[in-house]
C-alpha cells in the first residue's frame, strides 16, 4: 500500500500542510481538503484549463499535477487575487467587459491571464489569444475575455 506523505506549501500567501496519498491530484486537495473551490474540475484530462492555478510562477492544470509534487511550492488560486478587499484588475475587468457568462471557466481564465500579464505586460490581441489557448470557454466566444485581459493590462500598466 502506498505510503501517505506530508506536504507543505504556501497557498495564497498562507502556509498549509496536508497529508495525502501520492496518487492524490492537486485539484482534489485544493477543493476537498483545503476548501478552495475556485479552481474547477472541467474535463479532468488537462484540456479545458478550468482547474488552472499558479504554481511557482507557472500556470498549471491542477488535474494533472500530484499534490506530492508541490512540497515547498508557492501557489496562487483565484481566491488569492483579491487584495485587501479590492478585486484584482483582472477580476474587475472581467466584470466590466462582461468576460463571462456561466462563469465556470472564469477562475482558470483569470489565473492564466494573471501569469500571462506578469510575463508579457503589454500583450497584443494575438498574444492574449494564444496565451489563453489552453483555457476553453463554451459561452462567450472569447471576444469579451480578450477585451477584459486587454483592459486589465492597461490598468495594471498605468498603476
Amino acid at each position, binding site marked *: 500500500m502506498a505510503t501517505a506523505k506530508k506536504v507543505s506549501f504556501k497557498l495564497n500567501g498562507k502556509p498549509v500542510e496536508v497529508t495525502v496519498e*501520492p496518487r492524490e491530484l492537486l485539484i482534489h486537495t485544493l477543493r476537498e481538503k483545503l476548501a478552495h473551490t475556485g479552481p474547477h474540475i472541467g474535463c479532468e484530462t488537462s484540456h479545458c484549463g478550468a482547474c488552472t492555478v499558479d504554481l511557482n510562477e507557472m500556470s498549471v492544470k491542477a*488535474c494533472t499535477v500530484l499534490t506530492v509534487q508541490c*512540497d515547498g511550492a508557492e501557489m496562487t488560486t483565484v481566491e488569492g487575487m483579491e487584495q485587501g478587499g479590492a478585486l484584482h484588475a483582472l477580476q474587475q475587468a472581467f466584470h466590466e467587459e462582461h468576460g463571462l457568462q456561466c462563469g465556470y471557466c472564469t477562475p482558470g481564465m483569470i489565473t492564466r491571464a494573471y501569469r500571462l500579464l506578469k510575463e508579457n505586460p503589454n500583450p497584443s490581441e494575438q498574444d492574449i489569444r494564444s496565451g489563453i489557448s489552453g483555457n476553453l470557454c463554451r459561452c462567450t466566444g472569447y471576444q469579451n475575455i480578450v477585451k477584459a485581459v486587454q483592459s486589465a493590462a492597461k490598468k495594471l500598466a498605468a498603476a
Partner: protein
Amino acid sequence: MIPAGFDYHAPRSVADAVKLLGELGPEAKLLAGGHSLLPMMKLRFAEPGHLVDLGRIAELRGISQSGNEIRIGAMTTEHELLNSKLLAEKVPLLVEGAGWIADPQVRYKGTIGGDISHGDPANDQPALMIALDASFVLAGPKGERVVKADGYFLGLYSTQLAEDEILTQIRIPVPPAGSGWSYHKLKRKTGDFATAATAVMLQMKGKQVAKVAIALTNAGPTVLKARDAEAYLTGKAIDDASLNEAARLAMSICQPTPDQRGDEEYKRAMCGEMTRRALQAAHARAKG
C-alpha cells in the same frame, strides 16, 4: 479519474535516481512533466508501483552552449525552450517546434526529455531531434552512454532507453550559419496531436541543396526519417517539380493510423503537404 496507488520518490541527484531505479525494478516509472504519464495513469492504462520524480534534480535543467554544441537538460520545459534567447539564436527550429506543442499550461510542465523518452510517434520532439541530428545522454548503473536520435526510436512507446536508465541531456550540434529550418504541423485545435507534421533542416549551396534532413511526426508507429526524399533532393534546386517528388517520396514511407483526425489516405496526403510546406519555408530562410 484517479490513478491507482503507488509510492512516490523524489531523488535530488541523477546518481540517486539511477540507484532508486535499480532497487525498485520494473515496477518503477520515471515522472518528468507528467503530462503523458499522469493522464495514462488516470485512465489506468499505466499502473506503476513506484514513481521516481525527476523534478527535484537541479542538474537536469538548463540550456547552455559547449563549443559547437547546445546542451539541454532533460527536465528543461517546453516553455523554457520557447523562451530561450540562446535557442532562438542558435537552434530556432527548436523554438518554432516548441510553440506547436500542446498549450501554454502543458508547456510549463512538459519537458523535452519526457517528450523524447515517451516514444509516442505523435510527440513533436522526436522529429525535431532527428532533423537536428541530436544525441542523447543516457545514465545507467554502468555509467553514461551517448546515442544518436536517428536510431533511438524503435517503435510505439519503444526507444533505446533501458529500464534502468535515465535520459539526462540532449546534445545538438549548432547548425551551420545560413541553415534554413521549419516545423510545419497540421492539428485540428490547440492541444491536439498532429494530423501530420514535418521537421526540416536545410543547407543550400548556391541554388542547390547541399544537405537536408526531413523527419515526420505521427506518420507511422514511430517517428520517420524521410531518407529517400533527403537523398533525392541533395544536389537539386528547390522548385515545384522537386518539391512534388520529395513530398511523394515522404508519403511513400508513411503508415499513418486512421483515427478521428482522418483516414489513412488523408493523413498520408497531409504528410506530403506538410513536407512540401516545411521545405518551402526552410528554403525561404536558408542563405548560401
